[in-house]
C-alpha cells in the first residue's frame, strides 16, 4: 500500500512516499508565503518524480505548522509525534530526538515503540533555530550550506552571549569589526545554538541513543557542538530533514 506524509514547516516543505514500510522517495521545497500551495506542490512534484498517480496513494497524513492548511489529506498530526515515529522507523533503538526546525526546536523522548513519552518545545524565540542560522549567515555573508564544514576548522570558537537573535546578530557584527575569523564566529554561533537546545534537552531528560532531525541536522557544526554539550553521541540520518514527512507517511499506513 502506498502512503504519503507531507511536512509543511516554516521554511521548507517536505514530502515522503512509502510502499508497505519502504521509502520510495522524498522531496524538499521552500514553503514560501502560501503553505497550502507548498504542500500541494511538493506532493505533486514527488509523485511526478516517482512516476505515480495521486490516486495510487491510499492515505496521506500532513504535519508541521502548516498541517491544517492542506485539505486533501486524511489526517493532520503534530510534527512532534511524526518526528518520533520517523526516528523510530529509521532506527528502532532511538530513545530521544532533537529536532531543530526553521522556527522552533524540540526535544522528544520516546518509548520502545516510538511513542512520545515526554517533550519540550522552544516556541518563545528564534534563538536555537534554523532562522537564527539564516540571520547569522546573512550577517557573515557566508553560504549557510558551508557553515558546518567551516566551523569544524575553528581553533577558538567566539563567545556569543546574547540569547536574542537580533542582539546576537549585533554581537556577530562587533566580532567581525574586531577582526575575529569567520570560522571562529560560525563555531561560536553553533555553540550558542547548542547551549539553547541542550537546556531544552536536559529539561525533558533525554536518554541515548539520540538522533537529530530537522533541517539544521545537516549542519555538522551544530551536531558536533551539541554532542559536546550533552556529552552523548548524536546520530544523524541522511533523511534527517524529511524525517517528519516519513513519520507522517508511516502514521498514514496505520490509519484505518
Amino acid at each position, binding site marked *: 500500500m502506498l502512503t504519503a506524509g507531507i511536512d509543511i514547516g516554516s521554511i521548507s516543505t517536505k514530502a515522503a512516499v512509502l510502499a508497505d514500510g519502504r521509502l520510495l522517495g522524498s522531496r524538499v521545497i521552500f514553503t514560501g508565503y502560501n503553505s497550502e500551495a507548498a504542500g500541494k506542490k511538493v506532493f505533486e512534484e514527488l509523485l511526478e518524480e516517482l512516476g505515480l498517480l495521486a490516486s495510487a496513494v491510499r492515505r496521506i497524513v500532513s504535519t508541521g*505548522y502548516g498541517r491544517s492548511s492542506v485539505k486533501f489529506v486524511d489526517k493532520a*498530526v*503534530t*510534527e*512532534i*509525534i511524526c518526528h518520533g515515529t520517523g526516528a523510530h522507523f529509521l532506527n528502532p533503538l532511538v530513545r530521544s530526538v532533537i529536532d531543530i526546525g526553521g522556527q*522552533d526546536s524540540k526535544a522528544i523522548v520516546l518509548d520502545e515503540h516510538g*511513542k*512520545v*513519552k*515526554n*517533550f519540550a*518545545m522552544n*516556541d*518563545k524565540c528564534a534563538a536555537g533555530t534554523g532562522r537564527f542560522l539564516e540571520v547569522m549567515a546573512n550577517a557573515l555573508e557566508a553560504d549557510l550550506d558551508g557553515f558546518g564544514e567551516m566551523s569544524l576548522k575553528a581553533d577558538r570558537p567566539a563567545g556569543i552571549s546574547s540569547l536574542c537573535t537580533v542582539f546576537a546578530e549585533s554581537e556577530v557584527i562587533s566580532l567581525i569589526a574586531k577582526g575575529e575569523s569567520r570560522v571562529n564566529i560560525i563555531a561560536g554561533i553553533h555553540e550558542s545554538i547548542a547551549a539553547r537546545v541542550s537546556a531544552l534537552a536536559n529539561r525533558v531528560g533525554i536518554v541515548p541513543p539520540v538522533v537529530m532531525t530537522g533541517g539544521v541536522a545537516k549542519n555538522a557544526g551544530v551536531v558536533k557542538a551539541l554532542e559536546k554539550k550533552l556529552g552523548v553521541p548524536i546520530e544523524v540520518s541522511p533523511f534527517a530533514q524529511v524525517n517528519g514527512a516519513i513519520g507522517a507517511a508511516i502514521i498514514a499506513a496505520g490509519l484505518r
Partner: protein
Amino acid sequence: MLTEFHDALKDPAAYGKRLKEEGGRKVVGYFCSYTPEEIIYAAGAHPFRLFGAGDGIHLADAHFQSYCCSLVRGALEGALAGRFDFLDGVVFPHTCDSIQRLSDVWRMNVRGHFHLDVVLPVKLNTDSAKAYMTDVLEKFRNDLERKLGTSITEDGLKKAARTFNDIRGSLKRLYELKSENPGIVSGADLYAVVKASMIMDRDRVVRLLPGVVRELEKRRGTGEGEEGKRLVLAGGICNHPDVYRVIEEAGGVVVWDDLCTGSRYFEEVTEGGGSPVADLAGHYLARPVCPAKHSGLYARAERLVEIVKEKRAAGVVFLFLKFCDPHSFDYPYLKKALDEAGIPSMVLEVEDRLPSEGQLTTRFETFVHMI
C-alpha cells in the same frame, strides 16, 4: 442562560461603573482570591476583582521591570490609563511580592480612591495563625468602616458569609456537573461564570447560579458525549478563556482545576460557630493554599495528586503567568509529585496574551496524544 455572565466580562470596568451609577453602591477593587470579599460586601460595598489589562502594556512599563507578571503590570496599566477611576477604593492582600510592590507603586501614582493593605499571615497551619488572621480581618473591618463611613454589623457579616457560601457552593456544583458530564458545557463558558462571579453584583450572582445549576442538571445525559482526554488545569489566575477552546480542539477537556480563578476560590465554605470575623478567618485558613501561602510542606502536591485521582484525569496542564515566581518555585516539586504518581504533565507559560496559536495547538495535540 450565560449571556449575563459573558456580557459582564466583555467590559468589566463598564459593568462596575454601571453598578455604581445605577445601584448607588460604592465599588471596592481587589486583587487575589485571598481578599476577604465578605467584609467588603458586609460594608454595603461591591467587591470587584481586578484582572490584567489584556490589550497591551505601555504606561506601567515606566514603573515595573519586565520581570513582574502581566497581571500586576496590566492592572497598573488599567489604573494609569484611568480605567479604574470609578473605584472608591482598592484592597491589596499580602500574598506575593509583586502584589505588595504593586500596592506601593499604586499608592504613589494612582489617586482618587482609598488604598488598603491586608497584611495576611503567611504560615496558615501554626497555632497562632487563627488569632493572627482574626486580628487582621478585624483591623480590615475597622479600616473599611472608616474609609466607607459605615458600620459593619455582626448580622451583616453573617449574611455575607451565607451569600458567599451559596455562591461557592453553586460554583462547586457546576464544576462537579462538568466533571461528571464534560460535554454539557464548554470550558470557556464555565470559566466565564466563575470569573464573572468575582466581578458581578453578588446578590444577582447568588440568584442566577442556581438556575445555571438546574440547566446543567437538565442537560445531563443529553450531552454530545464528549470523549476528550480528561485534564486538570493548575496554576495561578487564568485570564485566557481561549485556552479551554484550544485544549478542546486538541482532543482534551478540562475536568477540574487548581486555579485561584477556580477551585481554590470555591472549594471551602465558611463554617459557623464562632464570631463572624473568626469564622471568616477560619475559612481563609482552611481554603486550599496558593504558593504564596504555606499550610504544610507537601500540602499543594498532595492536593493536586488527589484532584487528578478523584477526577479520573489523565494529565495536568500547568498554566503559569510568566515571571510568577511563587508558582515557578513550586513547580519542580509539584512536577516531581506528579511524576512519582505516574501522572503526565506539561507547562504553558503565558503573558497577557496567549502564545501563537499554531505552536500552542502543536503542544496540546502532542500532549493529548501522549497521555
